[in-house]
Every structure is written in structure tokens, then in C-alpha cells.
């Protein structure tokens, strides 16, 4: 058992990140190769100014009209995405482990803050889950994979939360927590989680077309 725990909390973490990075690089290279081969006109219209104008406009809460049409979903989604990165990166337990093995460390959230924030993430995911049943236009678009994405994101947060509170089966909770976290990292380059990298690119292109060619806003 100890060597298994040692493996998933040690080498497996690095293996996961390695797969993640190699996967991301592989996919991005593939993407740009294809652009060069088939659609190199993209560079003709791509403009840094308008790419970033569009990306920044979409990062400002409630600037885009679209976000004002669905304020609840948008707010929850916005906070959710922030916390999705913020909590794991600044969690004391994660930083402590990293410090002990790599001597890297940075500021951390207090455990109680992280605890409440994790609850926000879990409630966001429950909201997304329910929304897929309740909002007709979303329900129509939803497929099984959309629920799987919610599940995969929920697992590390729910198990992390339960493990922190040591409600039951502590050791197993931590094991599932670690493994599901690693699964999520590994899956990013190979699933629609890759929107993390593609979305800024599609946004940049649309922003460039709107700003550079059409002289119009795209938000």
C-alpha cells in the first residue's frame, strides 16, 4: 500500500504532467501544421491587437452582451473557471508536498478558505449538471460526454473536500482524489477539455476578423 501511495503521489504526478505537456505540444504543433498546410490565410487576418482586444473584452465580467443575457450561468461559470485553477495551485497541502519533494513553494490559501471555495466549485458543478436538464436549449445539445466532463472535474474536488474533513474512508478518499486529479490532467489534451487552449485561439481569430476586416466589435 505504501509503495502504491508513493507511486501515485510521486512519479505518477510527473507522468501525468508529462503526458499533459507532450499532448498539448503535440496537438498544438498538429494544429499549426494543418493551418500552414491548408489555411495559412489565417495569418493574413490575424492581428495581435484585435486578438487581445477580443480576449480581454470577453474576460471583463458582463461586458459582452451574451453574458448579460445569462447572468447567473455566466457568473457561476466565470468563478468556477477561476477557482478550477486557483484552488489546486494555491492549496496548502499541494504546495507543502511540492516543497517537500522539489523545494518549490509559494503563497497558499488558508485551509478554511480553500474549503469554502471548494464548496463553490462543487455547487457550480451541480448547477451545470442541473442546467443540462432544465434549460431546453442546453438539454437539446447535451450528450453523455457532457456529463462525463462534469463527473471528471467533480471527482477530485468532491474527494478532496471529503478527505479534508476526514468523514470516512480517509485513505481511499485521498487515493481516488489523487488518481482522479491526475486523470483530469491527462485528459486535457485529448478531450474537449482542450478548449482551455483552443478557445483563446478561436476567439483570437474571430476577434481579428471582426476588428481587422469588419471594423466591428465582437462582444
Amino acid at each position, binding site marked *: 500500500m*505504501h509503495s502504491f501511495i508513493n507511486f501515485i503521489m510521486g512519479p505518477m504526478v510527473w507522468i501525468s504532467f508529462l503526458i499533459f505537456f507532450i499532448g498539448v505540444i503535440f496537438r498544438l504543433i498538429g494544429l499549426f501544421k494543418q493551418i500552414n498546410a491548408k489555411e495559412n490565410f489565417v495569418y493574413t487576418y490575424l492581428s495581435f491587437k484585435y486578438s487581445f482586444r477580443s480576449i480581454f473584452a470577453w474576460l471583463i465580467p458582463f461586458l459582452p452582451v451574451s453574458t448579460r443575457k445569462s447572468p447567473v450561468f455566466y457568473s457561476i461559470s466565470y468563478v468556477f473557471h477561476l477557482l478550477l485553477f486557483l484552488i489546486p495551485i494555491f492549496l496548502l497541502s499541494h504546495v*507543502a508536498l511540492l*516543497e*517537500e519533494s522539489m523545494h518549490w513553494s509559494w503563497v497558499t490559501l488558508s485551509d478554511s478558505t480553500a474549503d469554502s471555495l471548494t464548496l463553490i466549485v462543487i455547487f457550480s458543478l451541480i448547477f451545470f449538471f442541473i442546467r443540462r436538464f432544465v434549460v431546453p436549449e442546453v438539454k437539446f445539445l447535451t450528450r453523455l460526454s457532457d456529463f462525463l466532463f462534469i463527473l471528471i472535474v467533480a471527482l477530485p474536488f468532491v474527494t478532496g473536500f471529503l478527505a479534508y474533513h476526514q468523514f470516512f474512508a480517509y485513505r481511499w478518499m*485521498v487515493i481516488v482524489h489523487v488518481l482522479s486529479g491526475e486523470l483530469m490532467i491527462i485528459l486535457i489534451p485529448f478531450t474537449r477539455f482542450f478548449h482551455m487552449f483552443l478557445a483563446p485561439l478561436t476567439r483570437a481569430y474571430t476577434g481579428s476578423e471582426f476588428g481587422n476586416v469588419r471594423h466591428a466589435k465582437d462582444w
Partner: protein
Amino acid sequence: MMKLKRFIFITIVILMITAFYSYSQEEFPMVDNLIFDHPQRPAAVFDHDDHNEKAGVEEDCSICHHVYEGKELIKDESSEDSLCSECHSLKTTPENGISLRMAFHNRCKSCHFKSNNGPVLCGECHIK
């Protein structure tokens, strides 16, 4: 004003609950964590004699109570008279690159992993 009152009230309740829990758990010996300003977790459960008996390290105190000169481990010398925090400060220093928290964690976990025995996960020592 109402808010302040409510805040004080809630704080007192929380303090009483924590006091109660601290009192009720007093029978379990724990690592002294008073030096930490804002400990995030309960102190680690640790019964010195019981542990050493189970681990079979009663004879060799210097496994944990080691002495370093610079980066050199001084063999056959031990430091059971001094506190861990006398050398390991809260933050790493140029003289000592191991902070107190790290010293505690690594000291316990490295042995436990090696011997395939004993707690290795956060909540296995920092029991709520």
C-alpha cells in the same frame, strides 16, 4: 452594529466548541505546534514512547534527534535535549534549508514509506 454583535457571538460559540474539542482530545499526545502562528491543521498525533517501541528505534535517538554541522550529519551525536525548532525555523534560512514544517513531514514520511508502515497521508497524522 447588529453585524458586530452577531460576529462576536459567533466567534464566542466557535471558540467554545474548539475549546471543548481541544479538551476532549487532550488524552492523545500530540506534537507541540505552539511555535506555528496559525496552524492550519490539528497538531500531529504522536506518542513518543509508543511510537519508538512499535518502530523498534528505542536505542537510536539520533535517527530523529540528529545533529548536523553545515551539511554534514555528525554520527553518534544526538540532540534530544533541544527542540526541533531550535535549528529548523518556520522559514528556510541560508544556514538551514529545511523549514520546520518540512522537517516534521519529511522526518516522519520518509521512514514510514521506507518501512511500509505508519501514516503517510495528511489526515493520518493531522486527525480532526
